């Protein structure tokens, strides 16, 4: 079992390629270090004893030499993106607060957390911090109302995610379709696939009320296609909660899964062109499967 801290690994990786908290990755010969958060499972159970040589990673089809570390003890940046629209009112809100607070309790000292809330506007009542008090207070004071701007909330969160040595996860909760964002789901998926943050989505189906006219006065279920695509292209997953009281278990299971992942790092060789790079990660010489982000965007140096 490999549990070396990430900073140790990165220092070992290659002389000048050092990533420290609060900084963009440093380039070596104009090529940036690529980090890929990967989950390896066998019959649904995480595999915890893999070595670098067990991973077969291909960047645009070209095999790469990767360093892998089981990231269970690495510091995490957790971005909670929670639905605070009117439909969450009542027991779902209480269960959501309970779930979010339980997740905070399960974090470790170096982990950081941020809270983004969305209804008809997007708010960040607690910025990314290791101090839990502000975010705990903000969670306890959540007031729900209005419509749903999920897409704008995701966009703003992803655009402002800090590039640090910490691994990052976005945990998104929603109980309804977006109906007030400026941006479209296609635009969000495009932006999301350019981040290295693992996105986990928890969706909840509220009980619906129909009017006599036949038109519902509640919005329909969350957009499953969007949430699934968003999660899966980042290497995360979507969980449906049939009842709001399942939220706590869902949140905690996703955090546990995030801690059961490997961080794969490599300097791309033979594929150093700007643009979209498709990633394919598999296990070598053993059974099991790997989920990881579907690719990454390498921008021209001048743009960076």
């Amino acid at each position: 079992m490999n549990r070396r801290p990430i900073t140790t690994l990165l220092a070992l990786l290659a002389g000048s390629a050092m990533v420290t908290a609060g900084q963009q990755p440093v380039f070596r010969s104009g090529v940036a270090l690529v980090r890929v958060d990967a989950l390896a499972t066998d019959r649904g159970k995480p595999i915890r004893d893999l070595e670098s040589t067990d991973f077969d990673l291909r960047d645009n089809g070209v095999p790469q030499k990767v360093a892998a570390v089981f990231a269970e003890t690495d510091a995490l940046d957790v971005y909670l993106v929670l639905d605070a629209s009117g439909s969450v009112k009542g027991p779902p809100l209480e269960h959501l607060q309970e779930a979010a607070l339980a997740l905070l309790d399960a974090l470790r000292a170096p982990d950081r957390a941020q809270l983004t809330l969305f209804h008809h506007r997007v708010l960040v009542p607690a910025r990314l911090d290791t101090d839990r008090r502000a975010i705990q207070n903000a969670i306890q004071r959540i007031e729900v109302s209005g419509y749903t701007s999920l897409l704008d909330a995701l966009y703003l969160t992803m655009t402002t995610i800090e590039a640090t040595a910490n691994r990052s996860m976005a945990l998104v909760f929603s109980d309804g379709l977006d109906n007030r964002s400026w941006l479209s789901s296609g635009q969000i998926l495009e932006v999301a696939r350019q981040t290295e943050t693992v996105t986990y989505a928890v969706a909840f189906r509220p009980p619906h009320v129909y009017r006599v006219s036949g038109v519902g006065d509640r919005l329909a279920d969350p957009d499953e296609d969007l949430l699934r695509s968003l999660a899966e292209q980042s290497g995360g997953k979507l969980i449906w909660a049939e009842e709001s009281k399942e939220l706590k278990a869902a949140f905690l299971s996703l955090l546990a899964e995030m801690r059961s992942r490997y961080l794969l790092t490599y300097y791309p060789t033979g594929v150093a062109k700007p643009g979209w790079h498709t990633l394919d990660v598999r296990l070598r010489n053993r059974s099991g499967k790997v989920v990881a982000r579907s690719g990454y965007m390498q921008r021209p140096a001048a743009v960076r």
Partner: protein
Amino acid sequence: MTSPARRCVRRTVLVARGLVGVAALIVCAVAGLDCGASAQEPDPAAPQFSVAYLAAVRDYRAGRFDRAMSAVLDIDHTDIEQTLTWLADRYRNLVLETIVEREANALEVHWKTADVKAAAVAHVDLGSRLTESMALLDRHFDDAATLLDIERLGPRKGAPHFLLAAEIRQDCYLAMVLQMQFLGELGGVAEWLDHSVPRFPEDSDLRLAAGTLAEEFAWEGRNLLITPSARLPRRLQSLAEVPRKNVLAEAEGYFRRVPTFDPASDEATLRLGRVLAERGRHVEALAALAPLLQLGPDPWIEYLARLFAGSVCQDLGRHDEAIAHYAEAIALQPGAQSARVALSHAQRQAGRLPASAESAEEAFSIRADRWYDPWLEYHHGQSRHLGDLLERLRKEAVR
């Protein structure tokens, strides 16, 4: 009427009738005064079930809006229905000239035109305040429609006392449509448009609302839960049966025709621009929006015109123009989040990542007391005018 309170009112009415009723009626009828200026004062010749209701209506007519609406809420709704049926029957008989002169006079004494108008406005006003109960809201809007539609029975020559001005009826129907827009109830919007557009086919406000319904359905219709067996309002049913492109085409048709009736309708032009963009007709969309970019007096329209023009420019790959439009929009409405999101996204598309992140941070940091976003109001049609419209109607009711 079954409650003790109602029985008490009845007893009061009976006692009062014996003492002062006839005299008061004669004096009031001759002098044209409000016979039932308060709910406590009985009107002896009016049907029993209408006494309290009529008093409440006259309270409303006297400008005591809150007290009147509170009284209407306290009245057993069966009494209101009976009163409205009585009223419609008498008017129908009047039209058919089967009513005897004495009854005609009694009708005029108890239900003046001003009362019918005040009652209709009161129900619209009340319905617009009942946002927590759709069933109650529907009931009062139905009552208002019953009163407004009494006119449809057709006026008899020489019986002008029930004629409500067309403007009042149009405005009442429009207020009901706007309230449904405010609540985001597309079904309710469709229902009242089905009811009112055939009555006022050339009303530009109703046409604008009809186009807005189609536009919103094209965008948000997928969000609605429509039960398979439900009987939908005709207008909504027709939208639900066709592909999105046809819904947008219907919206475009309405928005193009609105200026025929109201050449100054900038909102119709604004919505036309957006629908054209949604239909992929970018050049036409920019041409439609162009005159709205220099309006000055209406920052609501100009903000949205900038937003839509910026979006079209992004689609065309003209990022610098898009960024300029969004920057103008932010200058117009500094408290709006939508333009900051749009600006950040356009900067990102242009490859300006630090600027994009900075704009996103600014979107987060809008102070709550400065927050105002026309983009959210855009989804609620013309309901931002509802307050002014109701105020105008109240003034008409007391006139």
